[in-house]
């Protein structure tokens, strides 16, 4: 129930990877036939990734994950366009984007963080207004990892094209859950992460549209056409390719299945628990994302109590050493104080069943009842 954090590797994916540990273990950059088998495996995986998102194999660059893909897209473009020092992003991006932007600001670049509405949709008018002469890149995520809101990328793409600005999207959460096609979305770069779609951890890819000039952020033996050096993680890449292939084959079925579970979970919670709030957009929403706030109770406590009942979820509020912080995403959605500390993200996976949903609902009922009984607020 925490599939947005990570997913189990599909057994078919593990099977696909196994030969590349001890048998076909060649270095894909070696000249001998041993290395060539690995190189061929990489080519197959590259095609699997490309096919899934409507790209060409030569537009796919493998990385160590979604975080590195985001870094590469932004830092591979922004600092290398002299005179164009400005980029635009949204306030609800993943830290992989936001912290990269913060780093660029330290280096003297300028970043505009466009706000979102209370459903988490990026304010497109604001975005357009923030375009400058020297804007080189727009980076807006496809779907948000916390509240599941899907962004209007097609509209943003039009703005980017009109002003001749590169457009990157972090599609780490959307791939495998909704259709993702680089041409329909109109993006120049797109980040994917393997472990979010039943592939292994530590692998990802950046799609880079032909004609987009990008510089590397890791230097070395010029693997991946010089864009990403380092001996290729062959087994990981093979698993990633297989996972994406499976995901795209199953997309329609999985998406329907998850949507059903999602909607059933949301309506059960609303039917049985009072003082709740759905965070994120009611319909422009990932099929596997449920993000609900419960009044009078706090996130980490719910998380712990649910964990005791075998339900793993996540929360947008974490009690750290300094403060009980609401996440930057929930804050950006301007959720009321009463609700902001009691948020839960329940993210479904294709292997979940309606029985799992029943179990979660029961666990939630018990958890909320118990915690509200302890809460000084519930009585007031």
């Amino acid at each position, binding site marked *: 129930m925490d599939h947005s954090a990570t997913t189990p590797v599909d057994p078919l994916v593990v099977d696909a990877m196994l030969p590349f540990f001890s048998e076909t273990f060649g270095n894909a950059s070696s000249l001998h036939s041993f290395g060539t088998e690995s190189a061929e495996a990489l080519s197959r995986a590259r095609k699997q990734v490309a096919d899934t998102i409507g790209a060409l194999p030569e537009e796919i660059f493998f990385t160590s994950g979604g975080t590195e893909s985001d870094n590469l897209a932004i830092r591979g473009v922004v600092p290398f366009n002299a005179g164009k020092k400005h980029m635009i992003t949204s306030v609800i991006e993943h830290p992989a984007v936001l912290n990269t932007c913060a780093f660029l600001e330290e280096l003297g670049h300028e970043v505009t963080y466009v706000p979102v509405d209370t459903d988490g949709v990026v304010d497109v008018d604001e975005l357009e207004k923030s375009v400058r002469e020297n804007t080189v890149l727009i980076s807006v995520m496809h779907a948000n990892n916390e509240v599941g809101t899907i962004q209007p990328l097609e509209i943003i793409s039009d703005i980017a094209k009109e002003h001749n600005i590169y457009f990157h999207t972090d599609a780490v959460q959307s791939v495998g859950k909704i259709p993702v096609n680089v041409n329909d979305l109109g993006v120049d770069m797109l980040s994917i992460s393997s472990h979010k779609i039943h592939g292994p951890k530590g692998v990802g890819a950046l799609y880079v549209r032909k004609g987009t000039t990008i510089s590397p952020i890791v230097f070395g033996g010029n693997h991946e056409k010089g864009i990403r050096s380092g001996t290729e993680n062959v087994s990981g890449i093979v698993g990633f390719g297989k996972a994406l292939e499976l995901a795209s084959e199953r997309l329609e079925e999985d998406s329907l299945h998850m949507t059903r579970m999602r909607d059933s979970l949301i309506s059960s919670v609303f039917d049985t628990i009072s003082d709740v709030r759905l965070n994120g957009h009611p319909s422009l929403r990932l099929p596997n994302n449920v993000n609900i706030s419960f009044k*009078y*109770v*706090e*996130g*980490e*406590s719910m998380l*712990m*109590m649910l*964990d*005791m009942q075998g339900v793993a979820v996540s929360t947008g*509020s974490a*009690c*750290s*050493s*300094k*403060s*009980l912080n*609401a996440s930057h995403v929930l804050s950006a959605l301007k959720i009321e*104080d*009463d609700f*902001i*500390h009691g948020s839960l993200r329940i993210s479904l996976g294709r292997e979940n069943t309606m029985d799992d949903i029943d179990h979660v609902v029961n666990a939630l009922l018990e958890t909320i009842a118990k915690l509200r*009984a*302890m*809460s*000084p*607020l519930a*009585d007031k």
Partner: protein
Amino acid sequence: MVLYSKKVIEEFSSPANVGFIEDADGVGEIGSTVDGDIINISIKVKDNILEDVKFKTFGCVVAISTSSAVSRLAKGKRVDEAMALTNEDVINYLDGLPEGKDRCSGFALDALKMAIEDYINKNK
């Protein structure tokens, strides 16, 4: 999650002394929904002994488990003994708290002391 000691988890999942004391002799409450923690402790005092101590807490695992721990530690103690309880006593009782989770560890004790002061003020 193993971050927390067994004792913390125990205290969190089966807390003692949950509730408001209706005719309390002293009440202490700290926090707000903005901060995200509210701890309410109410006490009943008889013959200078904390006969009853109850808490209601909105907050994280540490807020709840320290509240419960404080209520147990204080209950049955003399007023001056309860006032002498330290943060360390609470943490020891819970077999330690994980690093970086010390922010709210003192709140429950603060609320208890507020309640005791409330009692003392009322009986001056």
